[in-house]
């Protein structure tokens, strides 16, 4: 037990260990995340308070509580797969733990607990404030709080078990192939897309309701009966927490029965999770002990120019590191998903406006809001470029001795990332326009958002070369604990969201649509100009930045 606790403590300490000299930056990032968390949570709590009258209906209460649990579980499912695979299968510390005088089962138990606790914290962070607020506004009984808080630690069992079951075949297929990172990356991207697809499915189930009424939600609830049965353990927990009598029993007995159902199913899932996790860890240890004596296919030399060689190198080094590939490529899916979501929403609103003529809301405002939101979401396209020098780590010395200028290195790296980012930007803009096509919007959005993406990518690389984070032991640290990513994302997101806010303020103040239209595009092109000026200023000092990099 002592060994288990020591290992667990070491794993958490390692997770929160920050690189020397970057404490200020890390604190700034933590403050930013804390601010975003408080901001989003305040918004959600505001909605909970606003909806308190509707919660009087028991059915809506069930629906709400159930979906809070389901949303938290979906987040755990999505990130749990990455966490399980990286901790149990692709972990780089297997060798280190293998030589310690500790049983391998203890190491495995500590690793699984590490993943479980991390995910439980995510569930608590998402669900707890909302559930407590819901309990207060719906005047829940005292047991509601006891049951909710006590069972939150058990909630990750279901999504993590699913995550393990999904991860094992992918892991197995990937281990048989040469380029396993690409397999994992494709899988993550499908998972990412699937997650939002499922979200859209839920939205479509209830989209018939124009106004949120008890009857409408009850109707949606009836249509979502399947979901309640599929995730019955959550339904059982929900009814137990809310003290709803079921099975012809009184409240107390029904609550006990439902809790037993939830706990029994969760215990069974936890056992499956342990078996699956042990299998993954066993495969990792086995793979680590094998010597790579396999015959490799004889290759050929291929000549190309220096810029092409540098671009190729950028793709190879990012694609062949699974977690880095996920951080660089998979997140690029987000603007496309957002474009689809906003496209559908815009189309639905257009339909509603046509049906409800004279509501006073010019539907074209929604299209403008969509473009501004898309501009904010392009922040995800800069991850790769904003870490391109940091990801080099100590290998940057190998770049510095080459007979190529800092400018050429930078431009090769930027070219490598502008290509996929621009493709995503064009696709997103085309999708968003396709749902409500207007040639003026199409031309204006294409020639503002796509160049904005290019400038943003360039900014990321320029900002990173100024002060790359080169001291890391795992390449993922170069991406995850890197303030250089946050700087660009902040500029992009704040710019886009401020534009949205401005639109709303103008609309509320009854400014004519023509004026709002002009102001909106001026803001977007203003953003383009600001990034352009910053890029030019930074670009002029590239060689100085490159030469002063020390390792």
């Amino acid at each position, binding site marked *: 037990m002592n060994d288990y606790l020591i290992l667990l403590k070491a794993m958490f300490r390692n997770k929160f260990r920050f690189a020397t000299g970057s404490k200020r930056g890390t604190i700034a990032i933590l403050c930013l995340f804390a601010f975003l968390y408080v901001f989003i949570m305040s918004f959600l709590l505001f909605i909970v308070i606003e909806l308190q009258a509707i919660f009087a209906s028991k059915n809506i209460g069930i629906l709400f509580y159930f979906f809070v649990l389901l949303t938290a579980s979906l987040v755990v499912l999505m990130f749990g797969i990455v966490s399980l695979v990286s901790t149990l299968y692709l972990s780089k510390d297997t060798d280190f733990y293998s030589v310690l005088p500790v049983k391998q089962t203890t190491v495995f138990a500590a690793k699984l607990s590490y993943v479980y606790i991390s995910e439980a914290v995510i569930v608590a962070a998402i669900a707890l404030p909302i559930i407590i607020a819901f309990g207060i506004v719906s005047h829940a009984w005292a047991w509601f709080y006891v049951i909710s808080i006590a069972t939150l630690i058990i909630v990750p069992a279901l999504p993590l078990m699913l995550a393990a079951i999904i991860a094992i075949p992918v892991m197995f297929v990937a281990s048989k192939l040469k380029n396993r990172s690409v397999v994992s990356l494709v899988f993550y991207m499908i998972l990412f897309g699937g997650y939002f697809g499922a979200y859209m499915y839920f939205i479509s189930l209830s989209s018939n309701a124009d106004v949120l009424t008890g009857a409408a939600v009850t109707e949606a609830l009836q249509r979502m009966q399947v979901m309640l049965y599929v995730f019955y353990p959550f339904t059982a927990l929900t009814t137990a927490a809310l003290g709803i009598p079921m099975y012809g029993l009184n409240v107390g007995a029904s609550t006990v029965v439902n809790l037993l159902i939830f706990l029994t199913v969760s215990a069974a899932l936890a056992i499956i999770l342990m078996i699956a996790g042990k299998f993954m860890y066993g495969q990792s240890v086995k793979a680590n002990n094998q010597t*790579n004596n396999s015959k*490799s*296919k*004889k*290759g*050929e*030399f*291929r*000549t*190309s*120019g*220096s810029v*092409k*060689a*540098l671009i*190729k*190198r950028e793709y*190879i*080094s990012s694609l*062949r*590191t699974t977690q880095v590939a996920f951080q660089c490529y998979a997140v690029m899916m987000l603007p496309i998903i957002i474009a689809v979501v906003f496209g559908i929403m815009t189309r639905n609103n257009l339909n509603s406006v046509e049906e409800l003529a004279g509501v006073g809301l010019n539907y074209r405002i929604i299209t403008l809001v969509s473009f501004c939101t898309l501009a904010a979401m392009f922040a995800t396209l800069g991850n790769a470029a904003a870490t391109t020098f940091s990801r080099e*780590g*100590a*290998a940057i*010395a*190998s770049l*510095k*001795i*080459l*007979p*190529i*200028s800092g400018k050429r290195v930078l431009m090769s790296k930027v070219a490598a990332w502008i290509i996929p980012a621009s493709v995503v930007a064009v696709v997103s803009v085309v999708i968003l326009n396709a749902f409500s096509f207007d040639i003026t919007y199409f031309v204006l959005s294409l020639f503002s958002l796509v160049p904005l993406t290019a400038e943003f990518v360039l900014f990321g690389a320029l900002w990173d070369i100024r002060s790359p984070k080169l001291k890391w032991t795992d390449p993922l640290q170069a991406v995850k604990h890197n303030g250089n990513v946050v700087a660009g994302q902040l500029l992009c997101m704040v710019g886009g969201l401020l534009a949205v806010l401005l639109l709303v303020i103008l609309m509320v103040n009854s400014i004519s649509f023509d004026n709002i239209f002009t102001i909106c595009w001026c803001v977007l092109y203003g953003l383009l100009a600001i990034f352009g000026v910053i890029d030019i200023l930074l670009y002029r000092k590239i060689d100085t930045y490159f*030469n*002063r990099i*020390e*390792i």
Partner: protein
Amino acid sequence: MLEINHVSMAYANGTVKAVDDLSFSLKEGEIFGFLGANGAGKTTTIKMVTGILPVKSGNIKICGHDITSDPIAAKRNFGFVPDDPIIFDKYTGREYIDFLGDIYGVSNEDRSRVSSDLLKRFSLEDAFDKRISGYSHGMKQKIAIIGALIHSPSLWILDEPMMGLDPPSAFALKELMKEHKAQGKTVFFSTHVLDVAEKICDRVAIISKGKLVLCGDMDEIKRAQGDDSLEEIFMSVAGNGNE
């Protein structure tokens, strides 16, 4: 070939001098040993010579090109093998050599010719098409050596090259150094292994606490110091230079 003129480098806001007013030069067609205890300033000097660290005081010229003002031309003239071969480990050996070939503009024929000869000498043929991340330290060292020589540089710089090499590969490396010299080119390497330096170097420089304490022809130094071994000479001039 290589001129180092009054070069200094300080760390920790100038309080720790890693290299202190260092000056010496290398001629064509010689093997030059750069000796010093741990922390004496060898690697810092080599990092400045190769452009990894900026030269903040003094100047360094490679084949007449200043590494600060004309870095591209200077870098075209040398090949470098670092002490810790952190090379692009996501590449296979062949992809790495291909990459360097592209950067230095080496033809396909020359890539094949140079690499096949060196792969054979270092017994690395079987691993050449495998990822470098799976190589041992010695194998990484060998692929770094092949990469440094792929463009047949005039100046070959090696930082502690014998570390991690098995005896046959260490022998092959020493032979390569001699062949490089025989072609009228220059080898500049740092080492702790004084026996190796004594056997193959034409000239040596000994550095202690960042300062040059001895530099000259191997035979002349020995004569001047009473025909002692290089180890004894080293101990007398830099023996207390350890950190």
